[in-house]
């Protein structure tokens, strides 16, 4: 069973459209020799500018579409036959099936979003005619580039993290189940540790009380806790075990295994948090900056007409 990724959506439909657009834009740019040199005010410059702005609008609408899944709801009410006799007009049925096959899914939207967004790099740059300066125009351009670059990271994360996450969970179904299992190991370890010396107990207690999963932004992204008490406990137990009497060893091994197992699970939980953070954090840049960019763009357009 194979699913298309969003890049491959409908046999690279939007890749093809975006490539066509950029290639023709580059060709037009090369062949066009405006009297005043290439800049945003030539007719081709205007064309590129307007085209870019339209694309930006569509890209922003993605955020709207994402949150409103049901703009078309209740369209098919006549198909809502609760009694079997109700006859369904063929036309409605065909319409419904057409929509199902051709109507855009969010995956389709995101596929278009990605390729058109990247095409913007070329279109907008050609629009400027490489005229940059310290002004609101270039501010808009710069913001756009940051949005696009963050978006590219997003796509990278979307394509890469899911597999890592599935593999990392290793058959445990939910994050909560993982936490419960860690908690359970903690309890077992504290009970087991009671029969040993105070320093062993202390190490185990510290591991139980001070091990952190998640936490601040940095911890989430890097999946580590400096001097992680659990990792340390495993290390120290290794040393402490050496001074034990022979008849305690069997029990001690049990304790050690529990702690070692906990260490792997804690690692897994941290990695899971990390993957989720990496899937998400860039959006906190991408989404607000896209609004900032939109504002700058409006300022740019207003400024142009003001100068006129």
């Amino acid at each position, binding site marked *: 069973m194979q699913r298309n990724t969003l890049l491959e959506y409908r046999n690279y439909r939007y890749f093809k459209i975006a490539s066509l657009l950029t290639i023709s834009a580059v060709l037009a740019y090369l062949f066009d020799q405006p009297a005043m040199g290439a800049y945003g005010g030539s007719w081709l410059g205007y064309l590129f500018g307007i085209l870019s702005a339209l694309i930006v609008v569509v890209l922003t609408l993605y955020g709207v579409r994402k949150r409103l899944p049901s703009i078309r709801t209740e369209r098919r009410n006549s198909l809502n036959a*609760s009694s079997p006799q109700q006859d369904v007009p063929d036309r409605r049925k065909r319409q419904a099936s057409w929509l199902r096959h051709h109507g855009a899914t969010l995956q389709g939207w995101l596929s278009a979003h990605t390729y058109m967004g990247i095409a913007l790099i070329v279109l907008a740059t050609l629009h400027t005619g490489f005229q940059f300066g310290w002004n609101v125009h270039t501010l808009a351009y710069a913001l756009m580039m940051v949005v696009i670059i963050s978006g590219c990271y997003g796509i990278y994360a979307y394509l890469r993290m899911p597999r890592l996450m599935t593999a990392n969970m290793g058959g445990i179904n939910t994050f909560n189940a993982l936490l419960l299992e860690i908690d359970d190991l903690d309890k077992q370890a504290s009970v087991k540790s009671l029969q040993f010396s105070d320093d062993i107990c202390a190490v185990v207690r510290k591991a139980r009380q001070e091990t952190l999963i998640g936490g601040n932004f940095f911890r989430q992204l890097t999946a580590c806790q400096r001097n992680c008490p659990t990792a340390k406990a495993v290390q120290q137990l290794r040393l402490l075990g050496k001074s034990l009497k022979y008849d305690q060893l069997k029990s001690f091994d049990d304790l050690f295994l529990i702690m070692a197992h906990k260490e792997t699970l804690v690692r897994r939980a941290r990695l899971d948090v990390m993957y989720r953070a990496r899937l998400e954090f860039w959006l906190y840049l991408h989404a607000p900056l896209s609004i900032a960019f939109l504002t700058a763009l409006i300022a740019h357009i207003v400024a142009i007409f003001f100068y006129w």
Partner: protein
Amino acid sequence: MTEKFKIAIIGAGPAGLSAAAHAAELGISHILLEAAQQPANTIHKYQKGKLVMAEPAVLPLRSPMAFAAGTRENILTLWHEDIQRHKVNLRLGAQVDGIKGERGHFQVTLSSGQSINAEFVVLAIGLQGNIHKLGIPGGDLPTVQYHLDDPEEFKDETIVVVGGGDAGVENALALAQQNRVILINREEEFSRCKEGNFNLLQAAIKAGRIEPRVSSRIDYIDSETGNGFLLRVVAKTSEGVEIIPCHHVIARLGASPPRKLLESFGVKFPNSDITSVPELSEQYESNVPGLYIIGTLGGCPLIKQALNHGYEVVEYILGNPVEPADEPLLKQKISCFDASCSVREGLTFIRHNAPILAGLTALQLRELLLESNILTPKPDDLIFKYDDYTSSFFSILEGELAVVVKAKDGSEIYFQIKAGNFFGEMGLISGRRRSATIKAITDCVLIETPRRSMLKLINSVESVRQKLDEVSMKRVVRNCLTNTLPESELNYLLQGATIRRYKAGDVLFHQGDKADGLYLIRRGSVIISQITAGKEDVLSYVITGNYFGEMALISDKPRSKTARAASATEVVLLKAPVVIASLERNTDLRDLLAARYRENAHDTKMIEPQDKPGNLFTFLIRQGVGEATDVLLIDYSLCIRCNNCETACANTHQGIPLFNREAGPTHSHIHLPTSCRHCEHPYCMLDCPPNVIHRSVNGEVFIADGCISCGNCKNNCPYDAIQMVAVNPKFKKPGLWQALTGGAYQSEKNSIAGDDSPKKAIKCDLCKDNAMGPACVRSCPTGAAIRISPEALSLTMRDSSAVLE
């Protein structure tokens, strides 16, 4: 001395109360025997504050007991007043365990050993059955309960819950929120409860919120007054005797269905099926003369019907031929085809013109008709279309219809069927889409019977099942093999043919077995697999409307593959010698099978994901996907865990997500979330008293208005796809602004209404009202979520280049 009454009424539910109140009204000597400590025990056990519905709305009420939709508490108070007012001779705590004798001389014995004589007996003990109690010293102390109304009533107490079934586990989980809970299970594992409950329980045990005692049983309970506890439970556990001081014991040990009891009274059931209802006369009299059966026990699931039965049965006993309350409704139905005839004449006409219904008792026929529609299509009117997802059953009273089927090569073939016949049984049996289009040729009169009523009938009346199977076998052969088979050949092929039924996982035949015949599937689906070098490979997935097992017949060798039922399956098995003989004569048939044989000779294996070997398809089948029609799968190699799918579901369904993305098993990178699978034969539909769970023509299983919140569907669904929720009627779909500012989906705040508003069963409806299809799938940014049928899945798994769109 034994007491003597004219009528002994057993069971003080709505039916029994109504009968007793009417007898009291008429001044007839009677006694009403109730096992519980209060009348209307079934209603009493409803959840607190439950809104009791008065369905069906069109049925008039005829009973001395008042009844209208209202809260449980209101209705119970009303009935208590009615009991007082009519001076009903009610005896509580009187459990009947024996009835002997016949009309005029019945002897009714109670579990206390007392006995009562009566001329007539009315049985109204409902279907709840006798709750099993702890048969130990202390089992009837007041703080030992056998049901749980409201878990919130208990706080900071120690509670011992007994029983490892769903009821016990659910109670334990609910109580564990605020109490210390000890769960006692007789068995070693909690294998009797549903997977969802099992997982929650495991988590609760791990988290220390529930303390389990397995392989344990209680020896005795005594009341203890010391240190604040009320009870002392003495239990034998696997580790010896344990003494548990506690405040309450709640035992959920199940109930024995009343059938055994009824059989011990001499009442006969038509067959062993659990849904079968005892045969009754038009006047509710059973095969034991003088013993009457009314209420749910007699096959009518709702309160209003039960109340009406109570009134009518007393009149019948007195010999008054009252019109049943539903007479005007029947009259109205019959007037659809003949305005002038009486109900009795109409019923005779039906019996005569629809032989399949001829074997019904008058009562069964009346009920059937009440639940059915009479259709009078004109020439050329469409009854149903090929591929529609409907499952009602049609009997032809008058007229002629055309059946249009698609042959295997795509051309259309016509048949005619006439009055006296029936159709629609294929969809009913298979739970799949219609295999033909049916149109009226002349003016017709049809009875359209809904799926549930028809299934009940098939399971209660042997003659219906026989007639149905006889015709169905022929149609199955035509449908699975070829529609052009001549009648004589058909009859020949069916010599010695049998219908076989299998449960999911049963083996139909093993690799190496001698070939016993040709298998035609009329319900369910089958997995064909082969063991090579010790490893089992799934080769194909065969669904209803197809045949298999031809290879060994043609090659005359033992079976080269194993066939296993993927879900509950029914096949028509044609005997090997008959098929072989027929193949020798009939070249068309031989060519047909030979073509398939060659095609299968180089069968390809199903493609398995590379990153984790193991059989994905087998995994899915084991998870019950074989009985699904549309299942939500998530490709975890694409899913970014954003839960946008759930959010979209909530935003389109009163703010409540109808599935749980994270819960559910994962195999390789395919995740099977906890969500509705729109089963071929939905379990949730099995026992919905107001019958409001339907399947739309497109196949979506949904709950229409009229849910009485009994929770049966939730309990019956093995896949945890139904929730009971108090939906906030004021929920508004989020507007654009709300959506953009993040206020869109606020399940808890916006949609779950206060405690006192009525709960309703809600489940996935596949966004049937939206032209674009399910919101979950549409709203997945990475395309990880898909909805698919098992057969489509099996096809894509056999073709490595296939991509699921």
